[in-house]
């Protein structure tokens, strides 16, 4: 996949729009009306006369590897020569016009493979069958007697390449074709290097921020320091004469300055006098919220799960323990600050953006520009990280509004500071757990109340009418442990900050608290934490028990460690996959923590690409560990304090643990996701290891707020 090939692919573009001088590695630029695409066999794939297979990817490539794993699924059924496969983005506008031919295009919830595998297999099988029929027609033989593999159809000593058959195959209709069973896979399950790697090592991959369109100008944007605040006034005359500066545009609670070059816009914005109406959030602080959330734990909450008689279990218990946990708001901090390029014309809107959901980009573009949805053309770029943040199109709306106001293509870039303070955070939460034990130390009662800022209250209020946001009780309302009496309650408590899906959502904070508390229970029962969990997992959790077994074996669980070091574990199932982790941690006498090693055991049912699967587990560990060590949004007088990597720090290479990932696959119907499930166990495994090393029990994150010194 060299640069030239990308250039060729982008030479013509949807609806005749001419892209600028260099848009290599950008995907969806082929014409979609089929006029000069004789080799388009179905909406998912095109085969050129030279046998190049182009597979459309309807999910967003943000590092998780869909540009490779999804084509693998199609190519496996197709019988394609993998060395001739390339990937490009599917076209959201085409999907709108053609009855959602690309199905759900949003990427999130670790479901790219889970959701799209069946229809991608069907697309590959459909194309293969058509190619076989085309060859059989030419030869006048029974298609049943032909074989298709390595991009060739063969019959006895006859052979035709897919590239020779594609045009004929495209005209053949076939009924539904059965798909392979897992034992027939040839490509799925084999380690394949990323198709997008070459473009990502020579600077040619086009991220949203790299888009260049003729006549384009740049916008820098400042939002009210207090979310939900408004613009009172600003004085453009003070910057009007600065070089390159063109215009300032008022947005909802924000001002954008437009200039010929980004740095001109940015420096002008820095000196633009803006008066803000700080709104409802003024005067609030995260310290107050922490106290209020904990106080709210004393309330009753709404029942999210109940079994047995918890009240009686606690009343008759031989002993009980209780502990409160807390987790802060977190920013996604994608490596590429959010940005979007929009060109609004009278009857057409083009949007170039790295977004997790081109369908919502299209909808927001139409609404903001006031055009019909079918006249909006999203051009998906590579995403410099997504982690949930890029499924919210707020910044797309801004770019569209600014382009509309200036009448030119505009690239709107949030500075790192705006990106950090811009909200859509992982919600903050407080959690209380109580456990009741019988005289033999067996857990007989489990009670849990969580107080959490609701994501869905703002997004789909009807779903939280009961008083429970299901994303807030992930990992709480259903626990794998066989404790006969359970009562799980929830309270929604919102602040003026905006919240959103952050890698693994409720699973990012709830299993932290739950799995640490389970260790507290093990200690109370005087049992080894791993053995304790095993004793609480019933036979219906055979997959989890096997993960525990692999974890125990691979981690060297139980082996002695020197003073100041400790080992901790946690296990959690999310997005259809089970991940158990053991962390080895060293803590210096003055309290500096170093996570030395993280061993993971993973059951995701089946693997599509082991290479990217391992990468996703490592990625999730680093992301989860970064949050556990340092992550917290502090709010003072309603405004977020953290602004950039100096005060919202990121894990560096020197602090990254050694990571070992072991897959133990249960197969069957299970196809679990992998973009997120590796994250939930990391923080609790690390905190449990810190307890083992120091005897200090951490019940709130981040770790940087705790004194972990020991003697």
């Amino acid at each position, binding site marked *: 996949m060299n640069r030239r090939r990308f250039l060729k692919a982008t030479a013509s573009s949807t609806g005749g729009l001419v892209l600028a001088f260099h848009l290599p590695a950008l995907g969806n630029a082929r014409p979609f009306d089929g006029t000069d695409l004789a080799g388009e066999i179905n909406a998912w794939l095109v085969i050129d006369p030279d046998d190049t297979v182009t597979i459309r990817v309807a999910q967003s490539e943000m590092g998780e590897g869909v540009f490779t794993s999804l084509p693998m699924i199609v190519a496996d059924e197709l019988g394609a020569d993998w060395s001739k496969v390339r990937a490009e983005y599917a076209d959201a506008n085409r999907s709108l016009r053609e009855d959602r031919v690309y199905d759900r295009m949003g990427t999130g919830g670790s479901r790219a493979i889970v959701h799209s595998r069946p229809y991608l297999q069907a697309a590959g099988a459909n194309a293969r069958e058509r190619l076989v029929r085309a060859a059989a027609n030419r030869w006048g033989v029974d298609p049943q007697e032909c074989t298709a593999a390595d991009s060739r159809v063969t019959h006895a000593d006859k052979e035709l390449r897919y590239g020779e058959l594609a045009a004929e195959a495209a005209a053949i209709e076939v009924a539904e074709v059965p798909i392979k069973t897992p034992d027939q896979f040839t490509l799925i399950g084999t380690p394949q290097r990323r198709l997008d790697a070459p473009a*990502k090592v020579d*600077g040619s991959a086009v991220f949203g921020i*790299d888009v260049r369109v003729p006549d384009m100008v740049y916008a820098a944007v400042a939002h009210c320091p207090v979310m939900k605040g408004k613009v009172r006034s600003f004085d453009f005359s003070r910057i009007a004469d600065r070089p390159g500066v063109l215009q300032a545009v008022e947005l909802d609670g924000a001002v954008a300055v437009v200039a010929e070059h980004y740095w001109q816009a940015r420096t002008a914005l820095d000196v633009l006098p803006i008066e803000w109406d700080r709104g409802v959030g003024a005067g609030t602080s995260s310290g107050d919220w922490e106290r209020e959330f904990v106080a709210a734990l004393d309330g009753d909450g709404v029942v999210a799960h109940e079994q047995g008689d918890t009240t009686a279990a606690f009343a008759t218990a031989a002993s009980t323990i209780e502990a409160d946990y807390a987790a802060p708001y977190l920013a996604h901090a994608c490596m590429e600050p959010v940005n979007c390029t929009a060109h609004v014309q009278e009857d057409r809107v083009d949007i170039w953006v790295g977004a997790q959901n081109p369908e919502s980009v299209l909808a927001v573009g139409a609404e903001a520009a006031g055009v019909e949805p079918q006249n909006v053309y999203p051009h998906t770029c590579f995403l410099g990280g997504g982690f949930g943040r890029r499924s919210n199109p707020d910044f797309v709306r801004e770019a569209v509004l600014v382009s509309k106001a200036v009448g030119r293509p505009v690239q709107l870039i949030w500075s790192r500071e705006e990106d950090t303070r811009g909200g859509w955070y992982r919600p903050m939460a407080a959690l209380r757990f109580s456990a009741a034990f019988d005289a033999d130390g067996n857990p007989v009662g489990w009670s849990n109340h969580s107080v959490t800022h609701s994501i869905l209250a703002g997004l789909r209020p009807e779903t939280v009418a009961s008083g429970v946001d299901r994303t807030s009780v992930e990992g709480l309302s259903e626990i794998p442990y066989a404790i006969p009496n359970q009562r799980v309650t929830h309270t929604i408590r919102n602040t003026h900050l905006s919240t959103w899906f952050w890698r693994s959502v409720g699973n990012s904070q709830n299993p932290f608290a739950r799995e640490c508390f389970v260790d507290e229970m093990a200690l109370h029962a005087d049992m080894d934490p791993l053995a304790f969990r095993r004793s609480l997992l019933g036979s219906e959790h055979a997959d989890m028990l096997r993960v525990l077994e692999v974890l125990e074996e691979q981690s060297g669980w139980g082996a002695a460690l020197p003073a100041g070091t400790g080992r901790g574990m946690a296990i959690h199932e999310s997005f259809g996959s089970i991940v158990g982790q053991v962390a080895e941690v060293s803590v210096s006498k003055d309290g500096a923590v170093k996570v030395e090693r993280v061993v993971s055991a993973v059951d995701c049912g089946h693997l599509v690409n082991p290479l990217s699967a391992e990468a996703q587990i490592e990625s999730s560990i680093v992301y989860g560990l970064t949050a556990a060590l340092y992550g917290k949004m502090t709010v003072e007088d309603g405004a977020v304090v953290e602004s950039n990597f100096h005060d919202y720090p990121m894990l560096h290479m020197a602090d990254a643990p050694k990571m070992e990932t072991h897959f133990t696959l249960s197969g069957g119907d299970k196809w679990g996701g992998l973009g997120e499930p590796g994250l939930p166990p990391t923080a609790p495994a690390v905190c449990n290891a810190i307890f083992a090393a120091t005897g200090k029990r951490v019940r709130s994150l981040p770790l940087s707020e705790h004194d972990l010194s020991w003697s």
Partner: protein
Amino acid sequence: MTELTVNGQAHALDADPATPLLWVLRDHLNLTGTKYGCGISQCGACTVHLDGAPVRSCVTPLAAAAGKQVTTIEGLSDDASHPVQRAWIEHDVPQCGYCQSGQIMAAAALLATNAAPTDDDIDAAMTNVCRCGTYQRVRRGVHRAAELARTQEA
């Protein structure tokens, strides 16, 4: 006018000399492989070579590059054949890829002065942030690139 050489090509630019080299490369020269991550020298996404040494271009004013040789990811090799680039492909290092230009430029600069870096050398030199957490493969990639560079010379 500020004169500088980028990837072997001479340029005369009339941008404000205080403009960070990062934005000159990206907006004026359309060399978009060099990335903006933080703007305050904290992440390394903007790493380029200035007269062969790694610098963070987001805090390097254009004036500081006057008369100098700048190498960006686009100029590291003609055909992605630099040992670091080859090692990166071999070890499937990139995820989202956004930090990788900077990682690669930092690694190339390290290997230029240290043909066989230890893990500690790598920790000290590779302070680039990767939000996707590719560190383990970056480390392997640096070791592999060192090997490739040695066999290339031999």
